[in-house]
């Protein structure tokens, strides 16, 4: 085992892991505000990539303009999803809500397939394709974008939850919905906010990976599941723990594929998921009754 080989596994793992983290945080934000797991999260990742493509190809916008448009439209669809599918429910038991999100994800995927067909599409990289040497390993400029944007979003997230009124209100909802309602926080608006934030984050994740992984109507399924794994490892926290969870998952996958067998790559992710759920359902870093924001 040479050092540069190991370094390459770790670097590849980190960049994939950053994406898992970003998607995972989307899961945990909604979970914390509403107590449900939004299985449509992966579809917003797909929407990010596909809408960017739409604005690039059909509207002939430059990349820097297409990206914000794509984020805006997918955020709007996240909002619409909450308004039309989540809010009207009279007796929102968790199982009902989870089934609704699964149904929603199938609907979004189906509509996208009708709209854009089944082909895979490529999106141009943000800044060139010349590999950059790091030690004995190589990464692409796009990887730096991914790591940078992920860090930026996590920092912004932290700021929002700890230093703004609405962020604090959302945390209050996570602690105790009823009490938050009693002190005058509009819980329903907070739920809407949580959908807005996580659909925006999901679409950003979808956009920044699209130049590397390409995009199609069905990319959301696997990415969504991996993001869910990351959130579980992180104990559904919307902060650092999920990020670490995503990175661990990415690195383990990459090391597993390189050192053990590439056939087990996905199995590794789901074995970790099951182990965590069996042994430490509160997450790798959580205490039994932990703060969940």
């Amino acid at each position, binding site marked *: 085992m040479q050092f540069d080989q190991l370094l390459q596994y770790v670097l590849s793992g980190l960049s994939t892991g950053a994406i898992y983290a970003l998607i995972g945080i989307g899961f945990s934000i909604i979970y914390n505000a509403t107590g449900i797991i939004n299985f449509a999260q992966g579809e917003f990742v797909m929407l990010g990539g596909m809408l960017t493509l739409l604005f690039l190809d059909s509207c002939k916008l430059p990349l820097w303009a297409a990206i914000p448009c794509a984020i805006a439209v997918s955020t709007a669809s996240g909002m619409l999803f909450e308004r039309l599918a989540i809010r009207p429910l009279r007796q929102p038991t968790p199982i009902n809500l989870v089934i609704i999100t699964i149904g929603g994800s199938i609907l979004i995927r189906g509509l996208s397939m009708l709209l854009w067909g*089944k082909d895979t599409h490529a999106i141009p990289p943000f800044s060139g394709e010349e590999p950059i040497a790091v030690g004995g390993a190589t990464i692409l400029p796009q990887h730096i974008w991914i790591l940078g944007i992920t860090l930026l979003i996590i920092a912004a997230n932290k700021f929002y939850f700890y230093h703004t009124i609405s962020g604090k209100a959302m945390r209050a909802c996570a602690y105790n919905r009823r009490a938050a309602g009693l002190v005058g926080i509009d819980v329903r608006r907070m739920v809407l906010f949580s959908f807005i934030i996580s659909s925006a984050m999901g679409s950003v994740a979808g956009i920044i990976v699209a130049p590397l992984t390409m995009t199609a109507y069905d*990319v959301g399924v696997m990415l969504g599941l991996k993001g869910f794994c990351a959130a579980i490892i992180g104990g559904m926290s919307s902060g650092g723990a999920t990020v670490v969870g995503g990175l661990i998952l990415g690195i383990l996958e990459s090391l597993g594929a390189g050192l053990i067998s590439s056939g087990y790559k996905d199995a590794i992710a789901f074995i970790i998921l099951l182990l965590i759920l069996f042994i430490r359902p509160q997450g790798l870093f959580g205490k039994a009754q932990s703060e969940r924001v």
Partner: protein
Amino acid sequence: MHVRFIVSMAALCTLMFATVVCAAAPIKIGALFAVTGPAAFLGEPERNSAKMVVDEINAAGGIKGRKIELVIYDTAGDATKAVQLATKLIKDDKVVAIIGPSTTGESMAVIPVAEKEQIPLISCSAGIKITDPLKKWIFKTAQNDTLAVGKIFEQLQKQKLTKVSILTVSDGFGASGREQLKAQAAAFGISIVSDDTYSPKDTDMTAQLTKIRGIKPDVIICWGTNPGPAVIAKNAKQLGLKIPLYMSHGVSSKKFIDLAGDAAEGIRLPSGKVLVADVLPTSDPQKKTLMAFVKDYQKHYKAEGDHFGGHAWDAVMLLKGTFELGADTPAAIRDQLEKTKQFHGIGGTFTYSSLDHAGLGKEAFVLVEVKNKDWVIVK
């Protein structure tokens, strides 16, 4: 007045006679294609091509005055549905022959039905199992994986490259390729030094490629359909791999070059000739047919005709050949099909026999390389 009456009577008679000729019962053939579902990339061009060529035959007056009636059903890539629809074609529609299905799984499921009902079936899928072992009523037009593997190994042998790493997708297509690569290696003096896989939805294969880089093979052969191979091409470029990269015929479409971009440059793969129709030497016996097919498909569907559509085109034309020789019952069609010799189609030059119902040789494939975002033939 009298003369006019006779003339009009004569005209009427001719007209009636003409209608009788036109009404000669059409020859009914059935088709099962996966037009929707995961294998739609096969089924859609197949349906389009079959319809196109049947319409053309009918527009030209049919075969000896008899039109062809094509009954197409969509199997959605589902083997159970394919079996039901095959039965429907045979029992309700009373077709004399069936074209399709599109995928190997469906074909294997439908074969027992066709065998039992004694209806000739020309499958459009590539799996070698379809015609090996030989089945009396089953033929196929798609090239075997074996031929594609042989084409690559032949080139490697010529260049004296012996150490090969393989990277295959973990689905039916990849598994079949992997099996063939391993089975045929020894015959060409090639050793497989590493054997890795990836799953169809994987988004990063640098781990596998890094491992392969450590092994230092002479060549990497990747077996998969889009988008995996495009990701692998990009990853290989990122890692700065200098090892020649071969792909399978599963990505022999312009789509692959679109997806992989610059990373596709220099990649080689075996491909059906339809992809490189315009650069084939004029001496190639298939060139005329290929050029006509590509032009025709472009005219009808505003898209590039590919070899998947070609499989259906070949199947219809092979049947037409038997009709022209007077066969119109299932048994006569089967016997006549088996006698097909040197039919220059899209997939290759077909020669069926009582021992071979696949009908193609290695020359059905050409080895192409991506150069300046286009294909060139490797000499």
